[in-house]
Every structure is written in C-alpha cells, then in structure tokens.
C-alpha cells in the first residue's frame, strides 16, 4: 500500500506526535508498505531522509497551551499539492488536523480517502471551541478518525462533533525488553532500586511526593536507591532531596532513548507518582516492556494502561504515606514483583508497534474505496488562498469566546 503520513509539527523538535509519526512510518515500512512523510521543520537541512518531504517553515502560534505550527499560504499549498500528486497514495493519514497546520491544508486539498489521528487531550479548549466549527467543512472529508486515547476521543466528541476509533500510542517493545542494563546495576542484584523518568522540576510529575515516600522506604530498606532521569534544574532537585536522602538518590540527568531503556531494565520498581495531566502514559508501557513492576498514581490514564490495577500497583495520588508503603511492600516481595513483571509484559505486548500498526492498517483498508484509486490534489482554484475565516454555513454556530 502507498501511504502518505502528514506530521503537523516541526520534525527537528522533539515531541510525542513527531515520534508517533516516525515510529509508525518505520513500522509500516518494515511491513513492506511504501510510506512517505510530509512535515514542516525548523531547518530545511534537518530533513534528510529521502522519504521525508519538507513542507516549509511554520509560524508558531499558541494553541492548547503549547505552541502549534501554523502554516498557510500559496507556497505551502503548492508543496502539499506536489507531494500528493507525486506520491500517488492509496491513503493519506494526517495527524492533529484540527489546528491550522499543514495537516488541515492536506485535508483541504486532497481528494480521496483520508484518515486522521487526534492526539490532543485537553478537555477544555477555547481555541478548539472556536476553531472546531470553522474547520468543520474540511473535517467532513476525513473518512476514518482515530483517537490515541479516550481523552483525545472526548475532545473529538465535545468540540468537533465527531467520533473516533481508539488506537493507542505504540511502543517498540523489543527495544525495551532486551538489551544491556545500566553499568553495574543488573536487576535484582545488589541494593533495591526505584526508577523515575520525567521532568523532575515539574510539580505535576509528582517527584516531591516520591521523595517524601522515599523517606519511609529507606527506613524499611536502608540500602534502597532512587534513580532519576530527565531534564530539570539539578540544584533545585538536590535542595528538595535534602541531606538525609542524598546518599540514596542518583541523578542521571537527561538520557538518550537507549539509556532510558537500560535504566528501565535495571530498576526493581518503576514509580510514576504523577499528580495530574497525563493523557496516556507511554512511559508506563515502556517500563512494563522492560520488565519493571510499576507503582503509579491513580490517574485515569494510568489505571487504564495498568489494566485496572491488575498489571501494576495503583496508589492514591499525592499520598506519600500510601506510596511509601506500596514501594516498601513491593521491594520486600520478589514473588509479587515477578508476577507483576509478567503481567506487565503481557500488557505491553498489546501496545507493540507491530500490533498497533496492524490495527491502523485495518483502518486504512476500511476506508479504501472498493475499486481502488489514488489520492489526488483538488483543482488549483479550489483552495482558499487565505486562512479559513469561518464559513457562512458555520456562522450561526460560532460562539465568540467571552473575555
């Protein structure tokens, strides 16, 4: 199958959607499909892969609390049109098309089966509430909608008036399951270790709660260690840790994907003490794939990923006492750790890219017209040369946001 993927965010900036598109493209190519990616980038030089097409630079605009890449105008439209004509795709798969990006542009121009994946999981969004009705006429062209999580689907239902099939994010399970461990720290050999990955200076990631819990863990397991990987201000972290915990904490700083996998393979327990705001929890799946038993706070997304608590220990959020007890108990019970690790691997296997990509392929096959046919670009004059400013049909429904 010839598949065209469209990534709306800059390829050379790290981000979940970019990784998703990259991994999906790689997996589908491994299955023998022809995959091309159209994406904007900060620097044209960083788009080197022959299967990548540079869609132009983008104008950052605030969207949903982060910066989205707005991209419009005749030059971008011409690039999209050329990409569609030269690609001769059976299906075009756009990501996050509801923001004014190259994805929306593709929806406007392409003629043929379009599949869209929605990643946004903000439940209340003024921008989406305003933009939703405006982009509706082009959203109507999408034949199959996918949401990566139940939250993303809810955004669809509430703001864009559609429904979506839920196909979660994928993880390269094999990459995490087998490989080296951190130097000198094979799992189960030596002092018990707990792992934490994430921006440690963001309170919502919950590291302060974990540090608080760590004090009680250290009382039960005097040689317990906490490994922290991620970005953040180290000085601030050490002042948060305090002198009593300092010998028990190791800060690895920002690590590569390979080192993160090695860390997850080394730790005896992985802890996700997040307080709020996770829509999915890829890191939990990565930890389970690496065979680490997981202790996580009771966020909806986490509970769901952990199979309603069957594949990991779920603790009330922001409760250091309960977290400390759960960690101590788990460190003291190798049998339960092995049991959780085994369940975790089975859960992680469901999120392997091989499995996820097959499900996405099933979506492609469902939207293909029975007789076949390729996606083409619409006629030149059809494209509105300016950003969409609402349509007459949508007017009555547009509610202006009150300041």
């Amino acid at each position, binding site marked *: 199958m010839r598949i065209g993927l469209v990534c709306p965010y800059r390829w050379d900036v790290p981000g979940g959607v970019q990784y998703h598109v990259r991994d999906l493209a790689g997996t589908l190519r491994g299955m023998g499909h022809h995959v091309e990616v159209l994406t904007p980038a900060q620097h044209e030089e960083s788009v080197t892969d022959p299967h990548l097409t540079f869609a132009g630079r983008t104008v950052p605009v605030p969207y949903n609390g982060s910066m989205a890449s707005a991209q419009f105008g005749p030059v971008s439209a011409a690039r999209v049109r050329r990409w569609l004509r030269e690609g001769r795709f059976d299906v075009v798969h756009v990501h996050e098309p509801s923001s004014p990006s190259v994805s929306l542009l593709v929806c406007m121009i392409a003629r043929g089966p379009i599949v869209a994946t929605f990643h946004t999981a903000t439940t209340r969004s003024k921008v989406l509430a305003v933009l939703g009705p405006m982009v509706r*006429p082009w*959203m*109507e*062209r999408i*034949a*199959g*909608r996918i949401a990566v*999580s*139940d939250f993303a*689907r*809810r955004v669809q*239902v509430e703001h864009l*008036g*559609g*429904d979506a*099939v*839920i*196909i*979660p994010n994928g993880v390269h399970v094999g990459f995490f399951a087998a490989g080296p461990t951190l130097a000198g720290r094979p799992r189960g050999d030596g002092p018990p270790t707990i792992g934490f990955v994430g921006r440690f200076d963001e309170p919502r990631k919950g590291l302060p709660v974990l540090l608080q819990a760590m004090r009680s863990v250290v009382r039960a397991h005097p040689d317990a260690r906490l490994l922290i990987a991620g970005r953040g201000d180290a000085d601030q972290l050490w002042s948060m840790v305090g002198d009593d915990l300092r010998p028990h904490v190791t800060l690895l700083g920002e690590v590569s994907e390979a080192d993160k996998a090695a860390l997850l393979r080394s730790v005896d327990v992985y802890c996700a003490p997040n307080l709020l705001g996770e829509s999915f929890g890829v890191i939990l799946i990565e930890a389970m794939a690496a065979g680490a038993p997981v202790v996580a706070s009771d966020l*909806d997304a986490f509970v*769901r990923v952990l*199979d*309603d608590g069957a594949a990991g220990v779920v603790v009330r959020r922001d409760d250091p006492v309960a977290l400390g007890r759960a960690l101590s108990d788990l460190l003291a019970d190798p049998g339960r750790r092995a049991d959780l690790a085994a369940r975790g691997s089975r859960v992680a296997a*469901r*999120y392997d890219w091989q499995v996820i990509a097959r*499900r996405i392929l*099933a*979506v492609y*096959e*469902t*939207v293909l*017209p*029975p007789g076949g046919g390729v996606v083409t670009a619409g006629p030149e004059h059809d494209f509105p040369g300016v950003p969409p400013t609402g*349509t*007459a*049909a949508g007017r*009555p*429904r547009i509610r202006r946001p009150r300041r």
Partner: protein
Amino acid sequence: MIPEAWPWLAAGVLLLLVIWLGWTLVRLRRLAARVDRAWATLDAQLQRRAGLAEELARQHPAALGSGARARLAAGAAGARAARDAGDRELAENALGHELRELPPDLPGVPAALRTDLAGTQTRVALARRFYNDAVRDTRELRGRRSCRWAGLHRRRPLPRYFDIDDRLGDLGAGVDVAGRRAS
C-alpha cells in the same frame, strides 16, 4: 444613504447567498458520497462476515457442536435474508451474538479461516463506526436551520444510523469500554 447604493447592496447580499448555497451544496454532495462509500464498505464487510459464518457452520460442524452449528447457520441465513427485507440490525446482532459465543480456540478449524473471521469482525466494527460518523456529519449539516430553510437536499431521505453491538471495546484493548463508562 444614497438611493443608488441599494441595488448594489442587494446584489452583494445576493451574491454572498449564492456563494454560500453553492458551498453548502458542495459539502452536502461530498457528505452524501461519503455516506454511500462508507455504507458500501460496511455492507461488504457484513456480507463477508455472514459468508464466513456460513462456511464455518458448513465445513467444520465438529468444532462447533450441533446446537451451535445450527444456530450459527440460522444466524448467517437470517443476516443474508435481512439484507433485502426485514430488520437488518436485528439479524446482524443475532449473528454477531452467535459469533461471540463461539469457543475461542475452535479445534480443527484452519488458522486462515479463524484469522479471516477475526479480521472481518474488526473491520465490521471499524466500518460501522466510520459509517455512523458520516451519517452524523450529514445529519448535523442538514439539521441546521439555514440548510432546512433553503431546502437543500430536501427530497433526499436522511441517512440512518446503523446500530449493532459489535464490541468495539475488544478492539480498543479495554480502552474503549472504559471510555463509554466515563463519558
């Protein structure tokens, strides 16, 4: 206002109205085509499912047991008959129920047929979701006051939702089941 301006103003309003009418008609036509395509896919997958169920009942009676075999055959026949007349949703539901009741391993049934059946059930679920999506978009646009007043596509029947229990939750690895509970 100077009197000469009125015709121009009227012409401008008229022009906008015509543009809007044309644009809405384009949207309606596109949606109608999408509904047709989605229905064709759903219909094809449902027929395929009935065909596979028939094949299973006919060629592998040993794997099913006589009671299940008869019910499955009846379900498949019912689904086929309902394609032309009768309550298709009801018939497809009955067949879907029989298929879900089958033992998971099905001894003696070739793996190809089992995979085919599982794949078809997944595709029925997907096709139904996408069809209902297209129907929802169409009904939304046609239900608008402006659209009704202009009488666009008035003579066409409104597309109907197709509701059967296909357990799309199984497809979502438990994610979707939770979603329905939460929303």
